[in-house]
């Protein structure tokens, strides 16, 4: 599977049908998840706001999952200098930033009725915010370095530095929160999910993953086309 994907032509042939397929799977799973979700009774503590969780929790999960994908692609791009890995890293970052932003916004929307305020410096929200800044830094570096190949390698190095740092950031933020127990009714992003919600939540997580897979493939295809166009343009000049 991996061997086959490393070849750009095979990758293009594979992604041509895999991307729309994943897109359809994502839509079906999301529809199923939302139907199950709205059939479930409102939470006795959170009321109807619990529905936000089905958008928020998968987005928060994806924000870290995509950064892991970005890290792996960056590592492969640095070590093997493979064009597809470089394209994959480049393509993943805006998607990851999107999921992270979605997690922040939905977290804030959920926080308003639940905690009575739009934003709380709770450890999870804070580390998601720092993660968002990681994505921003990655994209800014990638865009700012003039030479495209050098930009990709510099960004890949930054992604790896960030990957090593993320767990430490997370730990330090949790530690920081334990030091300042000023606003303490909220621990760890909210109360545990009752079992009724587990099935729709899992469906939503899978829907997000499939949706990410589809968008990622589409964006990698775009990168490959862009590179091919650049090569053709170069040949036309030479």
């Amino acid at each position, binding site marked *: 599977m991996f061997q086959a994907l490393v070849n750009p032509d095979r990758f293009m042939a594979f992604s041509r049908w895999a991307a729309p397929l994943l897109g359809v799977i994502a839509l079906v799973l999301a529809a199923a998840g939302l139907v199950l979700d709205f059939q479930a009774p409102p939470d006795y503590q959170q009321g109807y706001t619990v529905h936000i969780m089905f958008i928020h929790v998968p987005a928060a999960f994806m924000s870290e999952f995509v950064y892991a994908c970005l890290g792996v692609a960056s590592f492969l791009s*640095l070590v093997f200098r493979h064009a597809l890995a470089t394209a994959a890293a480049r393509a993943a970052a805006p998607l990851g930033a999107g999921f992270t932003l979605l997690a922040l916004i939905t977290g804030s929307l959920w926080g308003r009725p639940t905690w009575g305020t739009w934003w709380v410096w709770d450890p999870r929200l804070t580390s998601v915010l*720092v993660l968002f*800044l*990681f994505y*921003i*830094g990655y994209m*800014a*570096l990638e865009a*700012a*370095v*003039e*030479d495209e190949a*050098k*930009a990709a*390698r*510099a960004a890949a*190095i*930054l992604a*790896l*530095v*960030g990957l*090593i*740092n993320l767990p*430490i*950031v997370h*730990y*330090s*933020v949790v*530690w*920081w929160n334990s*030091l300042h127990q000023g606003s303490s009714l909220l621990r760890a992003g909210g109360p545990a999910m009752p079992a009724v919600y587990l099935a729709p939540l899992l469906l939503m997580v899978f829907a997000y993953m499939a949706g990410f897979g589809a968008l990622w493939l589409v964006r990698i295809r775009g990168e490959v086309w862009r590179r091919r166009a650049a090569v053709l343009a170069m040949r036309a000049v030479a």
Partner: protein
Amino acid sequence: MSGLALIFRRELALSWAGGGGPFLALGFYIAMASLLPLALGADPARMASVAPGFAWLVLALASLLSLERMFERDFEDGALDLIALGPAPLEMTALAKGLAQWIAIAAPLALLAPLIVTALGAPMRLAPIVVICGLVGGLSFCFLGGVGAALSLGSRRGGVLIALIVLPLFTPPVIFGAGAIEAFGVGLDWRTPLLLLSAYSLAAVALCPFAMAAAARNAIS
């Protein structure tokens, strides 16, 4: 080893004397501190409560100021090519650059910090912990900052870009340092956060030179 000593002496001379050396960072630190009471009102109790955290944060910011010069001068005038072909690997050069930056910028800032904290109204007895955190955390700031400086070689708008890349990485050292200072102030356990800060700084000193060297190699290729 003589290669390392040679490059370290040169880096120290360049960062200490070139373009104002530590005075730029020190001036920034003092100017920012003098704006705090103007922004917050000069109520002593209120100032005293935020002074340690504020002084610590601005110290981190001030250490960003001269990062741009760490690699860019050598990159632009071609000295980085010469250095890359010398007896010591680029990782050693990166280590020397980080340490020189620490001596020329971070250490003076750390020594100024207790003055700032006290002037803003925090008790004098915080001075030792502030200096220690400044010296230890300064290692993190210089080495993480060096990674940002090396990565942004060959980019437009180096300075702002470095800040954008580096500030999120500053999260752990800023938290641990502020935690140690605050805990010391209220008589809680300050050793744990200081140990965490030291561990983070040591890891930064050990690992960041590899990232800096990889980034510098990429820039001159």
